[in-house]
């Protein structure tokens, strides 16, 4: 009876040639294999956030790696863990990835201690993206609160790099205090792009702050709207996009043209671990970017 249970080697080739008898050819891949990548540069943005430039070491893999604005990667610090991080950089950039990471818990703390040259693992990209193609020829509202600028920046860069594809572009960004503002050294540059309006607001200004004080929603009042020709992307904490989206709704923008990026605990990025489940939806593969209609229909989403 030896032949009964011959060991069966699971390989991609074998699975394609002789699939399990489940009427289905599985797209088998090495789910845990990572791209080995090197931290090529580190910029301290604020006390809690650093910007990492990460370069996939293998040149061919680096060339092959493409993503869409809004997608995220799983960054692995071998021996400590893996975390989902949105890609903050431009999708047109093939040389390195930009990741803006807040020191929040264990893995992000190790990353914050890492040095230029440290090697980490990357998997991805995962998840849905901002609807940059659909947004063509529309007015664009890009709204971020706090760390929400990290994912939104990829959209900002896409829009500024492809300025002619879009009509009016408004970027609204708010944080609690001025020292939490991310990428402040780039505001000037974005403002200079023809027809891009950038407004910054903080909740608590304090001494030396000459800019706006208040909530991001306040900025919306001043923007001339053409609601049926506008797309909005809102990134930030749930309370914030709830208010902002309600306001946008009042201004007449349909829910399916507002996009939000949701955040949940994640352990796999592949719709397996269920940690990011909202109702019946996986934030990692059905999200993180959802249109607002879908988002409010997810149980417990907001």
């Amino acid at each position, binding site marked *: 009876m030896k032949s009964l249970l011959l060991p069966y080697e699971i390989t991609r080739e074998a699975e394609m040639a002789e699939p399990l008898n489940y009427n289905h050819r599985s797209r088998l891949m090495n789910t845990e294999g990572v791209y080995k990548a090197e931290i090529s540069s580190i910029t301290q943005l604020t006390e809690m956030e650093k910007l990492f430039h990460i370069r996939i070491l293998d040149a061919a893999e680096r060339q092959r790696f493409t993503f869409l604005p809004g997608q995220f990667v799983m960054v692995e610090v071998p021996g400590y863990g893996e975390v989902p991080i949105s890609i903050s950089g431009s999708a047109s950039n093939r040389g390195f990835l930009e990741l803006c990471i807040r020191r929040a818990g*264990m893995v992000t703390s190790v990353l914050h201690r*890492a040095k230029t040259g440290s*090697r980490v693992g990357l998997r991805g990209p995962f998840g849905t993206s901002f609807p940059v193609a659909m947004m063509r020829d529309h007015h664009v509202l890009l709204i971020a609160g706090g760390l929400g600028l990290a994912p939104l920046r990829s959209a900002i860069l896409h829009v500024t790099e492809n300025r002619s594809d879009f009509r009016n572009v408004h970027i609204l960004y708010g944080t609690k205090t001025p020292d939490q503002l991310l990428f402040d050294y780039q505001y000037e540059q974005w403002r200079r792009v023809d027809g891009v309006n950038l407004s910054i607001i903080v909740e608590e200004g304090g001494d030396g702050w000459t800019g706006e004080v208040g909530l991001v929603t306040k900025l919306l009042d001043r923007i001339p709207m053409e609601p049926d020709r506008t797309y909005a992307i809102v990134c930030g904490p749930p309370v914030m996009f709830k208010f902002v989206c309600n306001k946008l709704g009042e201004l007449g923008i349909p829910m399916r043209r507002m996009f939000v990026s949701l955040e949940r605990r994640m352990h796999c990025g592949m719709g397996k671990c269920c940690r990011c489940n909202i109702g019946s939806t996986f934030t990692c593969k059905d999200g993180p970017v959802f249109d607002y209609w879908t988002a409010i229909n997810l149980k417990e989403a907001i």
Partner: protein
Amino acid sequence: MRYLKIDSPRPRIAVFDFTDCEGCELQLANKEETLVPFLNAVEIVDFREIATGEGEDYEIAFVEGAISRSDEVERLKVIRGKARLLVALGSCACFGGVNRMKNAYDLDAANAEVYGPTPKETLPVRSVKEVVPVDLEIPGCPVCKDEVERIVRHLVLDVPFAFHAYPVCVECKQRFTTCLMEKGQLCLGPIVRAGCEAPCPAGGLGCWGCRGPAEAPNVEEFFALAKARGFTDGEVSERMAFFGGFEGIAAGGTR
């Protein structure tokens, strides 16, 4: 230590003990597979149980045992003053441990009973954090070496550590231990913090709660289900009081 191009100096640690059985310290010298790298990962400057020599320049102090005499209070304060990080090691240090049960008795009478006409100084038992601020508490009677090792690895790299929030039952399942409650024994597993790998139920002994409460334990329901299985509130409370971890948590489920 060098890992991912991150250089970390070996933290200088010291181990001190107070009112206890020294079982937790002993765990530090256990687990032969990793003992050598464990001792290499840190620099031990003071560890009376296994080494001669009193270093003063420690950064991390592991404090084992409960506090039950005035000289202990003083010694602990000195340690707190010197240590950058004070770690309470074991249930005695975290909760007072079994020693805490002493507080239920009249101390003079206790003294008379044990020492007759020559009473010895003794104070009501306190946990370490009731005397000085504590940075990290590692519960367990004794502590689980695996967990201590993990914590030490985090201390070496100076990154935060999180204990399991869930209760012991999870680890029973992992070991295929048939639930003792099913077999008719009392077990505190459903309300006690995991991390020990559930050796007690596996060895045929219901959990006695040495690691203290899991996060947000449903104590009220636990009393109810124990009662439904024939265990009185008194029995359950007595067991919850055994290691002192549930001090202040009663059937109401609140601290």
